[in-house]
């Protein structure tokens, strides 16, 4: 392990910043030679650094080029691009012109993107590749206000006939531009609209002001300090408000560097190349690291497993003692720890780059077994809680008061209380302005005294720590932090005559899977179409059948957000009935019983994604 990096605290407050662009300009003035971003350059195969000084010049070019589009402050511009320096440049240029940025998930489907473009009346869209625009063109009538499409990458072969509205960034960007000067702007003005999938129906646009985001980032720095020497590894999409606030604006505020990971697949390698000191993530990533660890242990044999178990046991006792929740471990454990650390813990932490001083998890509940494991190995893993409507962080654990079962206490400046039906209510300067174009739903989001309803049920202990108990609406929260309403999905699936009964699962899982009962007659036809024997039990398990069914589901769920895609199915011809005990006598689906009866089948649907027991 290296000697620890120095810790230079240099936070620009939200009051000093004023706006998101003010924050960026202040940072460029304050530490022009500091490293701002690091991005992989596929051409040279190396990581390229961008200093604040260079970022300032880049943003000036984007600003001047965007200015020529003649958009008025308050108009919406959308971005459909992976995390990158260009994302930052576009966002900052737009913010400097008072435009409202609407981010998209690159994995989202065309239907949903078209809907959002139309809903917010976006005037301009930035895409990464021509193909992303190409799939939107058949839906062009749904977003008539769009007048310009910018494409970052230029295709090698001749592009399709794209008309005059598409420009390639390389041609569009001005070569030279004067530095952008600070303009007076209202901190309470709308800065961004972040779309979230509600429990039912179409996604809603959460309106966040500059102040909403800035005060939230600042409050987080006050309980979990970030330093100029910190390096964040960013891989959670910037379209997610958690990454946007804590993985983008917060590092600007603290003068830290952000490195953009190439992809989730490359993450193990990028961790070693970048050696981050801070990770901001959703449970999914910690689950992946944990799963890899379990697999390696399984391959190694009993002695290695016993050693690992011992290290976690001793490490956990040390952690509890450090948290002052338990006495010092015994002499044996104290003597064994240095050796266990060298043999086990350090080796595992080395795979995360070996310099990690902080890992943050939010967006969905993190399995306590996973927190225990990492905390015991000496990785400070902090769980927090938030929602897009609160820009987004509401509560978080502190390093000195870290309880994996809790999501921690309220951030400074954020008020919490428990309302009717144990609902957690939030009030504070980070709470959204409302939902875009939906006054009625905006009104419903708040109670009479202006508290934001979270829809989550919670308990608050005498030290102010929040424990999430459940939720008020019937929704599944995946381990990626994304939410889906099983009701809507099941309804869409059973529209198709092939699917007689459907139940989707995915709570705490990385993706959605479905248990499907097929209609006997429709199945005969379907099987015949694939030249399969409908009466042979093996036919249901055929790869070709599953592929076709998944395609069908994909089609049925076309208008749903990308994360609501069903990735695995279990097919059966045996209906759920009163006789087999899967429906009650009054015809209620016994969801828990179905989950129990098909537990093995369900765990097969998530093979390779096991969680601790």
């Amino acid at each position: 392990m290296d000697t620890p990096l120095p810790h230079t605290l240099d936070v620009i407050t939200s009051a000093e910043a004023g706006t998101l662009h003010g924050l960026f300009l202040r940072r460029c003035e304050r530490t022009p030679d500091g490293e701002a971003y690091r991005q992989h350059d596929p051409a040279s195969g190396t990581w390229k650094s961008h200093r604040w000084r260079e970022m300032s010049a880049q943003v000036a070019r984007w600003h001047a080029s965007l200015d020529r589009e003649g958009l008025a402050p308050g108009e919406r511009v959308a971005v459909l691009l992976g995390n990158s320096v260009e994302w930052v440049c576009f966002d900052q240029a737009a913010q400097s012109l008072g435009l409202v940025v609407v981010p998209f998930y690159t994995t989202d489907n065309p239907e949903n993107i078209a809907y959002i473009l139309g809903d917010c009346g976006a005037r301009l869209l930035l895409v990464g590749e021509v193909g992303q625009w190409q799939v939107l063109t058949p839906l062009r009538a749904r977003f008539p206000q769009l007048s310009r499409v910018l494409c970052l990458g230029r295709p090698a072969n001749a592009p399709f006939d794209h008309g005059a509205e598409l420009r390639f960034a390389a041609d569009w960007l001005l070569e030279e531009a004067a530095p952008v000067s600070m303009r007076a702007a209202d901190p309470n003005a709308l800065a961004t609209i972040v779309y979230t999938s509600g429990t039912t129906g179409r996604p809603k646009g959460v309106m966040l002001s500059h102040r909403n985001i800035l005060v939230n980032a600042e409050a987080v720095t006050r309980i979990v300090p970030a330093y100029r020497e910190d390096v964040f590894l960013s891989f959670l999409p910037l379209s997610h408000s958690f990454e946007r606030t804590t993985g983008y604006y917060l590092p600007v505020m603290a003068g830290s560097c952000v490195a953009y990971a190439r992809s989730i697949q490359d993450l193990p390698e990028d961790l070693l190349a970048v050696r981050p000191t801070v990770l901001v993530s959703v449970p999914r990533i910690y689950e992946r690291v944990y799963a890899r660890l379990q697999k390696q242990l399984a391959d190694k044999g009993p002695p290695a497993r016993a050693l690992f178990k011992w290290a976690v046991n001793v490490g956990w006792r040390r952690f509890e003692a450090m948290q002052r929740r338990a006495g010092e471990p015994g002499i044996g454990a104290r003597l064994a720890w240095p050796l266990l650390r060298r043999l086990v813990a350090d080796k595992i932490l080395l795979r995360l780059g070996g310099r990690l001083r902080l890992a943050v998890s939010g967006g969905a509940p993190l399995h306590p077994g996973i927190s225990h494991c990492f905390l015991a190995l000496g990785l400070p893993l902090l769980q927090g809680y938030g929602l897009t409507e609160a820009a987004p962080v509401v509560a978080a654990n502190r390093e000195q008061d870290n309880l994996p079962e809790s999501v921690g206490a309220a951030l400074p400046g954020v008020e919490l209380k428990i309302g009717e039906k144990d609902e957690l209510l939030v009030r504070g300067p980070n709470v959204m302005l409302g939902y875009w174009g939906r006054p009625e739903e905006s009104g419903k989001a708040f109670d009479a005294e202006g508290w934001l309803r979270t829809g989550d049920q919670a308990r608050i202990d005498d030290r102010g720590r929040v424990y999430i108990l459940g939720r008020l609406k019937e929704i599944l929260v995946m381990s990626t932090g994304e939410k889906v309403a099983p009701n809507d999905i099941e309804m869409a699936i059973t529209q198709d005559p092939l699917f007689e009964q459907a139940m989707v699962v995915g709570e705490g899982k990385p993706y959605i899977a479905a248990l499907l009962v097929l209609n006997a007659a429709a199945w005969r036809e379907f099987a015949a179409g694939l030249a399969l024997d409908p009466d042979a039990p093996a036919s249901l398990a055929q790869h070709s059948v599953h592929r076709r069914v998944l395609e069908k589901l994909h089609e049925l769920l076309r208008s749903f957000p990308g994360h609501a895609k069903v990735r695995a199915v279990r097919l059966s011809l045996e209906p759920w009935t009163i006789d087999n005990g899967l429906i009650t006598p009054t015809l209620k689906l016994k969801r828990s019983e179905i989950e129990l009866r098909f537990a093995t089948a369900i765990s097969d649907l998530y093979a390779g994604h096991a969680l601790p027991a």
Partner: protein
Amino acid sequence: MADYPSQLVKHRVLFDGTEVTIRPICCEDSGMEQEFVRHLSADSRYYRFMGTLLELPQKKLQYFTEIDYDRHMAFVATVMQEGKEVEIGVARYVATERPGACEFAITVDDAWQGTGVAGLLMIALQEAARLRGFKTMQGMVLATNHKMLKFARQLGFTMRREPGEGDTVHVELQL
């Protein structure tokens, strides 16, 4: 087919003064029952069936309307709208395998929730179950269905959650 228990037909008044008929369901009600289910909001349908149904398939519709008024009993609440009888709520019990026990379910049209009609249906249903010798009435409610849980608590049902069944609450009443 069992004789229609016409002695159980009652006329009542809701909180807002609307006249409502509480009566056992019959096979001629299948069209009205189907309309009722179709008219429910997606949330209400989900709470009722804990799964997705846009409408009742023929077999289920038959199961719901052609009953023996003994092991399976159902009351509908209806109002007259433009000269037509319209179903605004339904409550039923069906005997379970456990001797002396029956399972109940109740649904009220979204627009009629909070009018007192659910209480009227449950009084009729419990009375009928008691007279037919049932000792316990039980039910399954989604944990997020707070209106129903509150209602069941007011009626004196006890609540129980089974380990590993996070989403459902078992409610039970000694008749």
